[in-house]
Structure formats: structure tokens, C-alpha cells
């Protein structure tokens, strides 16, 4: 139900024009107001009536629509700081600055996670005073900003697995986005005609779409399994699986999608790139496939060869 309401907001507001504008640096104010007005930004807070699982469902839906509001950061920041009606975002501390903060330029509150992700520094941006900030973008054209940490800024210890939550947020968003990429590809293949018929009638196209569908299904299940494991003792293991598997799927799906769309899909005018660039960008954020596969590999070795099957057989 929550996702139905959010889905309607996204369907109404989140069109290609909005994604183009966000890429140009225009913050989607109307969309933010709609989300904030309905309390979605505080869905991950303990007394909101929503659970963390609901929050991840919203993030996944946002991925499907390519929503240019940093849902993961907003939801988690609100959860950790006890709520705010002003835009809050999360970046990482590096060499005395907070970097990679989505829409840092527009945020009132910026949380900077330390290297261990065990604490964050909270920077309240006084935009009138013009605190120094570098505007940047990731590969998808999403705002990724950096700012200095003022002296005396407050550090807060985290009691939740922030690194795993953010990695999972990216995995879930990617899974939603991959589903959208599949839909766009199916639609295109059925509409585009060559040799007197829709290209979807060619077996080579069908095979590729089938591979794509398989990847979307596997990625979706991997991301869902990690959300299912939120309260259990295998959570970080499942996050490793999810982020690694979804990242792999992203590579396959994006490649096939561009192959199916041909030159049309390579244009800025066509909306496909908004989604493929997002999955390419997100798979590198909060740990790429190699990073999480190595962690998983270390875990499996510690488990030992004879413990491998019992581990797999008791996954939820």
C-alpha cells in the first residue's frame, strides 16, 4: 500500500524531463515536496509506522523510476538523526572532507560516514553563509558533492551496520532499475520493425531478452533475500551476495539493452541511458562485485568446505 502511493507520485512526477533536469543540476523540488509532504522521507524511523523493509521497498521502487531524489540517504539519515523535514543526505569522510554526498549542494544536513562506517559526522549546512562545496556528478549524472568538515563538527557513533544498509540500498535500487531496463527493452523490441517485422520476432533478440529476464529475476531475488535477512544473523552475508549478484546482473542487462536498442538507445534523447548509467554508477558505490565477492569468499573459506552445504541449506 505504501509503495502504491509512492508509485503514483513517481508515475505522476518522474518523467524523462525530470531526469534530464536533474542531470542539469536542477533539484526535483516538486517531487521532494510530494515525498516529504506524505512523510515518506521518515519511513525508516522507528515510530513512523513503516519498517526498514518498507524503506527498502520504497528505495527499490525509486530505482525503477530513476527517482532523482536520494531516497536511501534521506531515509537512513532521518532514521539516524531522529528526523528532519529538511533535506538530509549522506556521504563519506575522506581526507577531512565529506565526499560523494548526493545533492549535498541542496541539503541542510550532511552526514559523513567515517572509514569504518561506525560513526558519522553531522554537518549542518548554512547555505546562506555559502560553506565551501564542490559540485560533482557520478556516471549517471546524479549529483555527488563534497564539502569541508567544519572544526568542532559533532561525531555520532552508529549502532547499525551503515555500510551494509547502504550497499543493500544500492542493490535494491539497482534491482528495480534493471526491471525497468528489461521493460524498456521488451517494449522497444516489440515496436521497432526491421525486415518487415518487429525485431522481437528474431530468435537472436529473443534469446538475449531471455538472458536479460533471467538476470533480472536472479538479481531481484538476491536483493529481496538480503532484505528478508535484515533481522537475522546472516544479514551481512546476504548483503554481500546481493550486491555482488546484482552488480553482475547490471553488466549483462545493460549491455544487452543497448544491443537491443541499437543506435536509438545510445542517444541522450532516448530515456534508456538514464537507467543504464544508473546501474553502472551504482554497482561501484558501496563496494563493487569484486569487493563483495572477496568478502564472501573469505567467509566461505572460514566456514570450510564441509560447512558449505549446511550454510547454503539453511539460508532463509
Amino acid at each position, binding site marked *: 500500500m505504501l*509503495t502504491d502511493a509512492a508509485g503514483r507520485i513517481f508515475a505522476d512526477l518522474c518523467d524523462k524531463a525530470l531526469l534530464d533536469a536533474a542531470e542539469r543540476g536542477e533539484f526535483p523540488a516538486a517531487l521532494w515536496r510530494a515525498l516529504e509532504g506524505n512523510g515518506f522521507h521518515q519511513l525508516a524511523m522507528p515510530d513512523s509506522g513503516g519498517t526498514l523493509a518498507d524503506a527498502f521497498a520504497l528505495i*527499490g*521502487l525509486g530505482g*525503477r523510476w530513476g527517482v532523482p531524489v536520494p531516497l536511501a540517504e534521506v531515509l537512513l539519515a532521518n532514521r539516524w538523526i531522529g528526523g528532519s523535514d529538511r533535506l538530509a543526505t549522506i556521504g*563519506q569522510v*575522506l*581526507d577531512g572532507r565529506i*565526499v*560523494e554526498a548526493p545533492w549535498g549542494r541542496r541539503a541542510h544536513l550532511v552526514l559523513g560516514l567515517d*572509514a*569504518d*562506517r561506525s560513526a558519522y559526522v553531522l554537518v549542518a549546512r548554512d547555505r546562506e553563509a555559502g560553506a565551501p562545496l564542490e559540485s560533482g556528478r557520478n556516471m549517471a549524472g546524479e549529483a555527488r558533492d563534497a564539502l569541508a568538515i567544519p572544526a568542532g563538527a559533532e561525531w555520532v557513533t552508529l549502532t547499525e551496520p551503515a*555500510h551494509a544498509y547502504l550497499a543493500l540500498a544500492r542493490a535494491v535500487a539497482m534491482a*528495480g532499475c534493471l*526491471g525497468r531496463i528489461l521493460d524498456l527493452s521488451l517494449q522497444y523490441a516489440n515496436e521497432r520493425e526491421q525486415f518487415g517485422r518487429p525485431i522481437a520476432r528474431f530468435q537472436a533478440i529473443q534469446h538475449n531478452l531471455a538472458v536479460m*529476464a533471467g538476470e*533480472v*529475476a536472479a538479481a*531481484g*531475488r538476491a536483493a*529481496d*533475500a538480503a532484505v*528478508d535477512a535484515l533481522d537475522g544473523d546472516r544479514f551481512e552475508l546476504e548483503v554481500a551476495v546481493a550486491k555482488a549478484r546484482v552488480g553482475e546482473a547490471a553488466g549483462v542487462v545493460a549491455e544487452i539493452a543497448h544491443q537491443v536498442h541499437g543506435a536509438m538507445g545510445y542517444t541522450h534523447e532516448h530515456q534508456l541511458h538514464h537507467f543504464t548509467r544508473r546501474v553502472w554508477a551504482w554497482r*561501484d*558505490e*558501496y*563496494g*563493487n562485485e*569484486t*569487493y563483495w565477492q*572477496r*568478502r564472501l*569468499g*573469505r567467509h*566461505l*573459506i572460514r*566456514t*570450510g*568446505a*564441509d560447512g*558449505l*552445504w549446511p550454510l*547454503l*541449506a539453511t539460508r*532463509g
Partner: protein
Amino acid sequence: MRPTVLQFDRITLPEETEALRVEVRQFLQDNAEHLSRPNSDFTTGHDPAFSRKLGQRGWIGMTWPKRYGGGERSFFDRYVVTEELLAAGAPVSAHWIADRQSGNLILSVGSEAQRERYLPPIARGESYFSIGMSEPNSGSDLASVRTRAERVEGGWLINGTKLWSTDAHRNHFMIALVRTEPPSDNRHAGLSQIIIDLREDGAVIRPIRNMAGGEDFNEVVFEDVLVPEDRVVGEPGNGWQQVTGELAYERSGPERFLSAFRVFVELVRVAAERGDPALRLPSAGSPPTSPRSGACPFPWPGCSNRARARRLKRRWSRRWETISRSCCRRSRASRPTTPSRRCPGSTVSGRRWRTRCCCRPLSRFVAAPGKSSAA
């Protein structure tokens, strides 16, 4: 969201299946002598003694009615038993096809007499079935099979060749897809399924050597092979619907992803023993050292992987030295009049490389210390 067909929900097995899982593991420990060569590739572990033991435990034909020797257990129970056996690499080949599909086919479309005759020995782990579908000219296009069964006095006369029948040289029966009516416009019409007794009916069975040196599958030739009337399974002419139903049993189940599992187990064992350096991380559980993780191939400003940046700077500085020395040697040879000329060098790690010619510094590849925010 995702189309329903691509949405997989979490499945929690019933609690009783967990107890059953423990039972199977105990059984495997008690019968460890059968697992001397653990291999989840279920086509290669043919062990009638093991199959009989499983049958005695009631773990073959688990879902069938009790009056046919089955256990009337759930498909979840069967799933747990089969996946534990496969994960352990137990030798299940002998009874596998009979349990997985042939018995289910007979149960669903066979006559009562056929059920009573064929199912109990399968459930006991004593009777083994092979598949008679593919032919030399019919693989993916299964409907094009040409083996024919002609109604004659005394039964059906069969002529043709079946191919890739796993263990036909060791099993008791085959269920063959045959053409019982001439081909027509409807290529799926006129097919039937018929039970062949591989030891008694007179089919000629030739094992085929595979590329790994094993002999599991076979060519089975029928030359005027007569089988009794009561061997047709289900309705004559309804073979296509029946065989596609049978194939649904064949092409599902955990064997489809567990058949390489033992290889994975041994990989983990080897990796643990050898201490693969690729698996070492800076510290257990630490987040990636750069916000966008993965290898940073060049020491661009902003790269926070300091150790790597330093290594790369050293490598480029050695190359710069090599290039500058070689080009300066050439230059000195051709321009002997400017011994005091010096090249603008590039400052790398505090050292200044000077040359006696106008080599262009490769500064675009090497970040001077202090300019990179990572250094």
C-alpha cells in the same frame, strides 16, 4: 513492479523437513562407504545396493500413494531428501530417472495394472528406467521422431533408433516416444509412449563413449522388436502431451544447479589450504578504501588508494627515467654542442630527473606530490 513470472518469493520449508534433512545426513554418514567418490553429477553414480537402501528407507517414490509402494509424503519432503543426496554426491543414478519422471508418468496416465506392476519395484530401489526420446535426427525437434510402433498380432512391432539413453545398458526398462500413426499436418499427433524391457525384448544396446572417457549414454536399436499390447502407457496418439508433461519433471529440481556442487566444495577446500592471496583484504570487514571501490588504475588526483598510487608513481618514474635517458643518449649523439642544456624534469617523489635534451615530461601520467589530494 517485476512481472509476476520473474518475482520469486521467499520460501520457508516446513519444520518437519528440517528433521528429515538431519535424518538423511545421518543415513549418509552410516553408509559412507557408498560415498567414496562423491559426485553430484547424478548420471555417473550407479549403485544398486545404495538405491535399495534408499528404497528401504522410503526415500524413493516418496510422493506416490502407499498402495503402489510410495510414502504419500509432500514434494517438500522429496525436495529436501534429493538435495541432501545430491549435495553429498551420493550415488543415486540407478533409480534417479525412474523416481524423477518415469514413475510419475505411469502414475499419472498409466493403467491400474501398470501402476501395480511397475511402481512398487521402483519404490524399493530395484527397478531402473531409461529415457527413449532423442534419435539421431531428432534432438531439439522431438516431435520429429521416426521410431515407429505398428500394431500387429500379439502387440506392437517397433522399428527405429533411440539415442543418448542414459544407462540403457544397465537399466531394466525404457519409456520410448514412438510414432503410432503416419505423420500428418499436425506434427504433434500420432505419437505414443511405450514401455520397452531393455533386457528381454531384443533391442540392441550400444554404449557411447563421451569426451571424458565415460560410457553413460547409449544408442538403442529396434529391429522388428515385438512388445506386448499392455506396454503402451496412456492413450495411443496422446504421446506428445504426455511426453511434455514428463519433461517438466525431468527439467526441474535441484539437480539442475547442484550437479557441479562437489566441484565447488573442493574449490573451497583447496582455496583454504593454499591461502589464496587474492582473498586477502586489508582488514576483515573493512569498507573499500575509496568511495568508488575497485582498482584505481591510475593515480588520478582524488584517488585515495595511497599505497597503490605510490607504487604506480614509482613505476612511472622508472619509465620516465628510461625514456629520458634513451632519448637523451640519442640527442647527445646528434647534438654535441649543448652539453649544459637541461630538460625540464618532472618532480617525482622528491627526486628531479634531469636530462640533456628537450624531452617532454610525462607529467600528465605522473602526479607530483602535493597536487594529488590523496598523497
